[in-house]
């Protein structure tokens, strides 16, 4: 326990009954830092992220699966089956945290609610990541990012202007996943101090709203203000925008967040004459003439590549950044210099790194997301000491999907 070079969460065991993206992202963050995350999979209805195709074991090979569930173990159990339910109870005895993101009542029905688990493991931590929370009139409702994002108000603030349909940021699953990791670490630190576990009720709607909408809602409740989408502009500073560059669909984001940065921007684009132009003398004035500024800046960027614009403006002290595609990210010199991308120890390729780093610790990708049932024998025999006869091989004819993309699979879901 005292070895400082060990990963910080080594020895923490997490039973992961989550599916799709938000819940798995929470446990991925902790798996990256050494937690042993055991994903419980239901063969008759695989996690949607495994897709719906069985040929060539495609369900084991999706890049999204490898990423979201990296560093985790997979054990297949049918919790409706008393034999498998007993195996899970055995596993709970040696587990620190149980996480699920099913709708309210599903876990209780499977005997995985806090009240049942605490009788098996008195200091257990149980995180429930439902869409809407464990209480309230909508507690039984289901959610994906596609409904949580508009219901939180995030989407009402994102759009080109107030006359066109608002646009999704689309990634509140990650917001909710990180909040799930916040919740687990809060309870782990508390248990380390006091020896006590607890249940945590996380509503994904509340988590997204809290992280992204807090000041906007306060303003609204205080003054009745009805903020509208601002496109690529800012409410207080100008100019700010996204400007077309040379090349196919290449763009750069530029913001002058102070009068000083505005003056630097003018100099950097060869328009020092604008510094003394009364139309642009203050942020308010620049806001009034924003369309004109956009034309001036856009004419300058259109002849340059976004990386060149970024380098040039940053050298002049102006905030600017290339609108990076995922391909751009893969060869970004800064991310490369920081060693952000990891090559997995299992030779499964490259992965994005961790969203924070700890000095003296090399956290990273040891293994791609697991094959279905890949660790049945490890968990059932090695961890639990049960006989090999307890391990049921995964049979393709038993596999069902959450995701009937090519029609019902053989032996399909209940």
């Amino acid at each position, binding site marked *: 326990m005292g070895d400082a070079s060990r990963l910080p969460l080594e020895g923490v065991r997490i039973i992961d009954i989550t599916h799709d993206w938000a819940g798995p992202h929470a446990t991925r963050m902790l798996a990256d830092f050494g937690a042993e995350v055991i994903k419980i999979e239901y063969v008759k209805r695989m996690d949607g992220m495994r897709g719906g195709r069985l040929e060539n074991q495609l369900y084991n090979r999706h890049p999204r699966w490898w990423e979201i569930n990296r560093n985790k173990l997979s054990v297949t159990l049918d919790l409706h089956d008393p034999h498998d339910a007993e195996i899970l109870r055995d596993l709970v005895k040696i587990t620190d945290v149980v996480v699920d993101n099913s709708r309210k009542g599903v876990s209780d029905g499977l005997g995985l609610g806090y009240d049942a688990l605490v009788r098996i493991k008195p200091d257990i931590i149980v995180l429930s990541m439902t869409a809407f929370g464990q209480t309230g009139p909508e507690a039984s409702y289901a959610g994906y990012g596609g409904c949580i994002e508009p219901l939180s108000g995030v989407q009402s603030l994102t759009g080109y202007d107030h006359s066109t349909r608002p*646009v999704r940021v689309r990634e509140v699953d990650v917001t909710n996943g990180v909040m799930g990791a916040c919740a687990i670490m809060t309870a782990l630190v508390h248990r380390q101090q006091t020896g006590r576990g*607890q249940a945590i009720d996380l509503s994904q709607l509340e988590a997204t709203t809290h992280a992204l909408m807090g000041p906007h809602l306060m303003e609204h409740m205080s003054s009745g203000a009805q903020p509208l989408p601002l496109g690529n502009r800012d409410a207080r500073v100008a100019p700010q925008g996204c400007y077309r560059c040379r090349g196919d669909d290449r763009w750069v984001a530029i913001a002058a967040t102070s009068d000083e940065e505005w003056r630097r921007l003018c100099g950097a684009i060869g328009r020092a004459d604008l510094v003394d132009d009364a139309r642009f003398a203050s942020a308010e004035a620049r806001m009034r003439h924003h369309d004109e500024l956009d034309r001036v800046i856009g004419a300058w960027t259109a002849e340059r590549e976004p990386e060149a614009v970024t380098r040039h403006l940053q050298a002049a002290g102006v905030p600017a950044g290339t609108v990076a595609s995922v391909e*751009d990210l*893969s060869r970004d*010199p800064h991310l490369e210099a920081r060693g952000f991308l990891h090559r997995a120890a299992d030779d499964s390729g490259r992965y994005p790194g961790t969203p924070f780093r*700890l*000095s003296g610790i090399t956290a990273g990708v040891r293994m791609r997301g697991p094959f279905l049932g890949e660790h049945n024998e490890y968990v059932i025999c090695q961890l639990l000491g049960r006989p090999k006869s307890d391990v049921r091989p995964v049979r393709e004819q038993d596999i069902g999907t959450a995701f009937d993309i090519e029609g019902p699979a053989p032996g399909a879901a209940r």
Partner: protein
Amino acid sequence: MSSLPAPDSSPTSGAAGALAGVRVLDLTHYLAGPYATKLMAGYGAEVIKVERPGSGDPSRAIGPFVTPHPDPETSIPFLYLNTGKLGVTLDLKRAEGREIFTALVRQADVLVESFAPRVMPGLGFSYETLRAVNPRLVMTSISNFGQSGPYRDYRAAEIVEYALSGLMALTGDPARAPLASGPAMTQATAGMCAYVGTLTALFQRGRTGEGRHVDVSIHEAAVDNVEIAFAEYLHAGTVAKRKDDHHALVPWELYPCRDGYAALIGGPVRHWLPANDLFGEPLLAERYPHMADRLAHRPEVEALLRPWALRKDKKEIYHAGQGRKLAFGYLATLDDVVESPQHAAREFFEPIDHPVAGQQRYCGAPFHPARTPWRSDRAPLLGEHNARVFGDLLGYSAARVGELRASGVL
């Protein structure tokens, strides 16, 4: 370790927070850092926010303000992002200020800072220096691009981080420019990641007794938001593009309805067919029973759904879909969010009093640990707790605190 009494404004609550006994020195400003330390304070840590004498956290000068005129005590972003913290002032540019800060570091468990990477070493407060002062210290540094690398000293704004992290290329209409997020997606993500990173280091300290330096790059934290698209490029070479909200599945987006937009989400997929009678369109189930059929005939499926949606109100559609186990939603205005019966039943919005800003309603806890409460105390006034913090922690007399204040150190 000894803890300060809770701030005056605190409602008397029996149970201690999950992070009770953890003392945090908070040298952060603007959004990402303050959000991380707001969560620490909310879950029971003693967070001492250290601000520059005179002006304080620059976000105090950023509106909107509760009052008709700008006031450093009524900035809404400041009020929201600094709940539950104690507030002291200290001039770190003066030798005396740095000595006092070093004395505080000796008694802290955590230091969170969000200066540009050159600033702390320039003040003599590199992690190596502070570790020598307090080997148990967990120091978390939040910066735009991390503590190293060619962009280390780049300037940033939310839109610039959103662009460089890969998010912006995936947001918006392909016929128009990439689009920024309304809320500050990258900074919020980084704030939460800083919370996870700090607690991970604290957890390890509980085992080893040694602190760590936690490096949080807002840029890298934000990249996780596109982890799926990024992995699909790294493993399969596919480059995702923005596609105006058309989801890979159908239906799975907003459609216009009688009073706004409703989110028709065709999942969980197994509940779609049993729910199809909802739409009064027998052709839906007959012709497009499987997701593969719907994907192959997106326009036809949408043509059957749109008229139905246009005849109904957004909340009617939401409850009708959810009543059939489909994860429907609707485009909530801020009024809708504030008036949500679900939020009301869970008391998500909490009134908090403030001597200058008055009573305002805030989002309460982001998650609810059953045994350990969330603390909803107001943000501190500038320098409000100087006498208490410097008196209780460092043993300064009231007269000494007065002298330091008069000389501008506090």
